[in-house]
């Protein structure tokens, strides 16, 4: 019998906050079919959009105004970021996982090749990556506290400091004192995907493990900021549930966090569900390219100062065009397996299939070719 997904497990820090209820209730009330063309145009005319206006940009009615939305989106992007596009690469250091999430390639019941890099191997990977000129790295693990505990991640971060200026993590949610420890090691950015903000759907997708606990995951960004992190990233895995509701909830969540922590740097990722090892078991709602673009532009106009990352799940054509309009961050030279950079043979299997396989130089040149400026780091650790 599965545990209650709304009840914290022992050792999980409990947050006394009403933010979860606000996000879930407002998302529940959000009815995209009630918006008409006029609502969309009104939203586009406003300088500062309310969550209601954000809902308009995500609605079906907005599809009639994509070009106008794109024009506003590009204006906001240029105003806040100029033509800068930030480059980074993810580094997977372990793919052991204790969660059973039915759509994920790393899920603990999947029969995939598991691996964890030792410190020598991590350093070797980092050295190889740094030779490409990248100065920002995102460290990832599967969600296993047993196989990749906080001190293991901390040591990896200390190694990363030798090679990179900016370090982010995308690992299992943890308590604020653990975030604070990792911040001291050198991390400043924490991304946690909520996957879906519909708690009932969430329950049916995350069958066991720590990840099953919906509120603990939801409050990750708050705990990270209380742990002195500089910025936090948000995402729903679009396609798991009604993508409009999930995108609305993601934006609202980020909006409320920014109001509570005005100094926090906000970031969005916009992954669409893609084929992964064994995820043919689930049915998902395909999110089209048009809908993806609509979502990214809605994030941009609602929170123009947020960084938006466009995933390697997307193909070259989509990525190169979205960085012109709304996204500000792009990965390159991506390997989502374990040990594929400096340790000749990949030791562990990949989390999902990537579509854009270009190396750093190729992405760099593509950015320049579009009249944009690649930036390796815009960050100083003090």
């Amino acid at each position, binding site marked *: 019998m599965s545990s209650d997904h709304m009840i914290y497990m022992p050792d999980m820090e409990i947050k006394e906050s009403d933010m979860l209820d606000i996000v879930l209730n407002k998302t529940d009330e959000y009815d995209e079919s009630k918006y008409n063309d006029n609502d969309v145009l009104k939203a586009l005319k406003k300088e500062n959009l309310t969550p209601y206006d954000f809902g308009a940009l995500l609605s079906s009615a907005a599809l009639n105004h994509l070009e106008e939305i794109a024009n506003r989106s590009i204006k906001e992007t*240029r*105003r*806040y*970021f*100029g*033509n*800068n596009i930030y480059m980074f690469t993810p580094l997977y250091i372990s793919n052991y996982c204790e969660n059973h999430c039915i759509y994920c390639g790393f899920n603990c019941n999947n029969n995939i090749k598991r691996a964890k890099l030792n410190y020598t191997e991590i350093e070797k990977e980092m050295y190889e990556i740094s030779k490409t*000129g990248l*100065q920002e790295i995102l460290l990832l693990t599967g969600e296993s506290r047993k196989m990749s505990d906080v001190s293991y991640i901390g040591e990896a971060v200390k190694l990363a400091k030798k090679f990179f*200026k900016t370090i982010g993590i995308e690992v299992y949610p943890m308590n604020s004192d653990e975030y604070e420890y990792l911040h001291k090691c050198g991390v400043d950015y924490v991304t946690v995907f909520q996957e879906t903000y519909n708690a009932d759907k969430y329950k049916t997708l995350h069958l066991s493990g720590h990840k099953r606990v919906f509120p603990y995951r939801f409050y990750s960004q708050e705990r990270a900021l209380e742990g002195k992190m500089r910025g936090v990233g948000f995402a729903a895995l679009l396609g798991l549930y009604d993508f409009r509701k999930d995108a609305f909830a993601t934006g609202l969540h980020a909006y409320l966090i*920014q109001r509570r922590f*005005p*100094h*926090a*740097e*906000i970031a969005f990722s916009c992954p669409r569900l893609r084929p992964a090892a064994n995820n043919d078991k689930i049915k998902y709602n395909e999110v089209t390219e048009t809908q993806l673009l609509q979502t990214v532009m809605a994030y941009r106009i609602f929170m123009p*100062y947020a960084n938006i990352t466009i995933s390697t799940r997307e193909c070259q054509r989509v990525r190169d065009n979205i960085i012109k309009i709304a996204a500000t961050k792009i990965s390159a030279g991506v390997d989502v397996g374990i040990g594929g950079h400096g340790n000749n043979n990949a030791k562990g299997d990949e989390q999902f299939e990537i579509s854009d396989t270009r190396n750093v130089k190729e992405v*760099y040149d593509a950015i*320049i070719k579009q*009249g*944009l*400026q*690649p*930036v*390796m*780091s*815009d*960050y*100083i650790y*003090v």
Partner: protein
Amino acid sequence: MLNNDKLIIGGHEFDSRFILGSGKYSLDLIKAAIESAKAEIITLALRRAATGNIANILDYIPKGITILPNTSGARNADEAVRIARLSREIGCGDFVKIEVIRDSKYLLPDNYETTKAVEILAKENFIVMPYMYPDLNAARDMQNAGAAAIMPLGAPIGSNKGLCTKEFIKILIDEINLPIIIDAGIGAPSQACEAMEMGAAAVMANTAIATSGDIVLMASAFKKAIEAGREAYISGLGRIIDKAEASSPLTGFLHE
């Protein structure tokens, strides 16, 4: 251009009153923009001054230009001080523009923390130029703490909204014995010109140029506007007649 009309900051003399930003546009346009702007000072976010060998902004700034590193990214005085010291260490000189921001939405400066940083850095012989919200009391504190110039915002960074804070900047120009350099929000050459007509010592612009259709041409347009505004200020603007004057004096009856 006027002879002997120098901008003096911390004992250094400049002919140009246009401080150019280096962010938000392509690195290979920086040199042409500087030349077109005839700028002698260029700002640089120290956090962009990477040590790496790809896209390192320092490689794109011509020799002989004064670099004005800023402390963007600092959220308090302590971080600003550490960034300034790092800037001196890596050879960016003694000039520093203090930016302390702990608001990711509007990017408004924190005057209180900024003043604290000015005090510490001035004692370490930096030429300190604080970016600030135009508040007279804060500007006085910064002056007393050893600032070399005061850089009030015209409008939020990047907003291109112009001189929204005009009345308060006028007060600073009247009351503070330091160059007042309008820093953020200037969106068009006409606004830069207006700031100079009011008596601002210089104008700094970045987004207005970076987001224009032709960066090099817009840099030139700003240069001309700033020079025009300066010449108008020095000439003394003519009087503004705001209503028709009566043909016979209202007090004429006293002499009847």
